[in-house]
């Protein structure tokens, strides 16, 4: 009987579970021992059980294509990724610190702009940011928190250090997949889960509900909370419906809401109009209110910004919060932490070159083949150049694009991001992974225990986005003191 570990070769990247080809890390010792007790046939069976569960539970995401939208089953790798609780506590602290500083920054941007006045950042960065909303100047959401829900992408480089790759502050998605991944793992590996102390994650919907209730307009005792979705054709519709269901909140579309002359938001119910206090909106700023932003938006609610400015409804995340979700602004986060919190950053940034800065731009243009170049405002892994994997022609084309609009591009060294054993055609092979924990901030701050681990299923690939051939893994934070 051949082992699924046969020829497992860790490359130069850090492997999350293995120190070397044959030696598991202390943290993954028991998992590896357990996997060794299963033969290939057993593993195949578990994998099939997971696939069946995903189909039956209807865990899907939508892919846009020329032939219409296709609902695809969620790609899931049954081998979990493990982090020790000791390391995790530090990461958790770092994530809280980071989001707190980011929220201070956003509040400052729409207020006195002290950070810029103090010379910490050129004002031009804000003025040229397409996510800066002048409509928000002078406003103060509850607790002065603008980004209530944040998904921060972390990667581990070959030095073993976790770096922050980006902060998603607009409408980060993926948390429902994190929750469902655990449900599937419980079905697939019930034996091992019982014997290892893994931090539970299923309190997220409750925490989300608490956070949303904590930002309701001040006088409201039992706020009516709704999740605003762009509709069933959105790629994250599954998640919108899932979170609404788990929180016991209403899932609404733009057409279900109306803003009346009293500047309050109502939803159309079988009993007539019912007032709405908190909206967890999963629609980008641009589409939120056709009276203020894009006039052609059929997804939003006319008058929503009026109601929000009047303080009659809370929006999470607040409009304009995306100003900090910009890869140029990202480069200044360590400085924000020092400036607003008077602390040293716990989690390091990846070295970032701002093409806007002439010195940086020269360096970037001279080193394109070894850098990753990203647009400042895109998400989903679109429109970027991975230097080491690009052809000479692609690099030449990108050079022109960057020179044309340097403000819109940043560059980073190509990290050798960590790998984890992943089931590929019946045996384990190392595949590159990242991690997206979710942070909630309202009256209090909360971080998920772990997060969504995304894996690039193609050999050697560094792109983990599900829209581009990525999959996911369950993430275990193991209590080391008790195991």
């Amino acid at each position, binding site marked *: 009987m051949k082992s699924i570990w046969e020829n497992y070769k860790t490359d130069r990247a850090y492997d999350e579970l293995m120190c070397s080809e044959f030696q598991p890390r202390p943290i993954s010792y028991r998992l590896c021992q357990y996997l060794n007790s299963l033969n290939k046939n057993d593993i195949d069976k578990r994998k099939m059980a997971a696939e069946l569960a995903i189909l*039956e*539970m209807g865990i899907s995401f939508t892919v846009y294509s020329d032939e219409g939208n296709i609902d695809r089953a969620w790609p899931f790798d049954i081998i979990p990724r493990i982090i020790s609780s000791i390391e995790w506590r530090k990461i958790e602290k770092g994530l809280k610190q980071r989001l707190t500083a980011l929220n201070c920054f956003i509040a400052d941007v729409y207020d006195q702009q002290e950070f810029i006045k103090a010379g910490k950042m050129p004002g031009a960065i804000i003025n040229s940011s397409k996510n800066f909303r002048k409509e928000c100047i002078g406003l103060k959401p509850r607790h002065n928190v603008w980004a209530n829900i944040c998904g921060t992408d972390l990667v581990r480089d070959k030095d073993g250090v976790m770096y922050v790759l980006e902060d998603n502050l607009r409408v980060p998605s993926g948390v429902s997949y994190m929750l469902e991944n655990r449900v599937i793992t419980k079905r697939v590996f019930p034996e091992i889960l019982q014997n290892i102390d893994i931090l539970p994650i299923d309190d997220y919907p409750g925490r989300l509900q608490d956070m949303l209730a904590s930002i309701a307009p001040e006088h409201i005792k039992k706020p009516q909370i709704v999740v605003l979705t762009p509709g*069933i054709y959105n790629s994250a519709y599954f998640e919108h*419906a899932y979170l*609404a*269901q788990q929180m016991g909140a209403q*899932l609404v579309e733009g*057409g279900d809401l109306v803003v009346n002359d009293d500047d309050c938001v109502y939803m*159309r119910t*079988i009993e007539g109009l019912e007032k709405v206090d908190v909206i967890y909106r999963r629609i980008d700023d641009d589409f939120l209110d056709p009276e203020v932003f894009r006039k052609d938006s059929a997804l939003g609610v006319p008058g929503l910004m009026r109601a929000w400015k009047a303080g009659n409804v809370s929006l999470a995340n607040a409009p304009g919060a995306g100003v900090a979700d910009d890869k140029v602004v990202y480069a200044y986060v360590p400085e924000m932490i020092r400036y607003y919190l008077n602390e040293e950053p716990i989690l390091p940034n990846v070295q970032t070159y701002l093409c806007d800065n002439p010195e940086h731009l020269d360096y970037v243009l001279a080193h394109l083949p070894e850098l990753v170049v990203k647009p400042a405002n895109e998400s989903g892994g679109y429109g970027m150049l991975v230097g080491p994997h690009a052809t000479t022609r692609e690099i030449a084309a990108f050079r022109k694009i960057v020179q044309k609009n340097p403000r819109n591009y940043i560059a980073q060294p190509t990290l050798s991001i960590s790998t984890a054993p992943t089931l590929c055609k019946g045996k384990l092979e190392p595949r590159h992974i990242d991690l997206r924990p979710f942070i909630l901030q309202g009256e209090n701050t909360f971080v998920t225990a772990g997060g969504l681990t995304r894996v690039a299923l193609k050999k050697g690939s560094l792109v983990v986005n599900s829209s581009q051939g990525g999959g996911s893994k369950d993430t275990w934070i193991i209590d080391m003191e008790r195991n």
Partner: protein
Amino acid sequence: MLSRSAERLYWLARYLERTENIARLVSVHMNLLMDLPNGVEMGWLQLVRINASEQQFYEKYKSANEHNVTRFLLIDDTYPCSLFSSLSAARENIRTSRDLLPDEAWEQVNEMYLFVKNNIDSVYNRSSRVVLLNEILKGSQCFTGLLSGYMSHNHPYRFIRLGKNIERADMTSRILDLASLLLADSRSDEMRQYETILWVNILKALNAQLMYRQHVRSSVNGDDVLNFLLLNENLPRSVSCCLAEIAGCVNALPNCDSLPEEVTKLEAYVQTIDTRQTTQAQLRGILDSLQNKVGELHNRIANNWFMQGIREDAAAE
């Protein structure tokens, strides 16, 4: 509760009920054919007639044989009333209403959908078709059971019951309409010989055979069956019983306007039908008008509670 959600749950229930009805019709019909001698005029086309879809059928198929009719009724995804189309529509409605229902409800419908989708070719073979139809019947009952046991009997639940019973009343009246043809004087002597078998199968199609025997306590005959299926107050698929369920839901829902009175009127109308005093032609007329009235009731419900009503109000302004 959102008007949009009410609309989706109502249609979810209608589509699921339709799915179950088609499965039951086809499965009863297969049994019936086994009991009848070859050559008796009770072909597969009757099933297409019940759904009033002859025209659509002949646009695509030349002859109404078993292969074509089962294909058309069960898996033709271009025919909106086929079992697979109905089930797909039910799944789409529940997929967009997951915030209101227990997880198991979605998983149940999703499993049924996947089962049919993965076994689409099994309908061409009699024995595998039986398995598929049984799976659907079981699944539908399972869905009803888990909603009844897992879900608060609240407004969302009422809209589900409403949709289910509107669809059910419609289907029962369609089956009776077809059955009334069997009372026609013009039917052949050979057909008369097998009349009892036909009526028994009508009862089976509506899960009413046992209840009928307990209630009527005599051999099966046409008039009694018609009366029983229209008027019996306890049989879940009788028209009266469906209307009583509808009345119960309508009365408990907010902003019900004049709907309770309208349902009461319809109930009274059904009570006055006496199948023994009518000719076959009159009976067909009565059943036709009953189907129209159920259709009107649906329109009233939609205008009163659904987004459709809001859209029409907005257009009127």
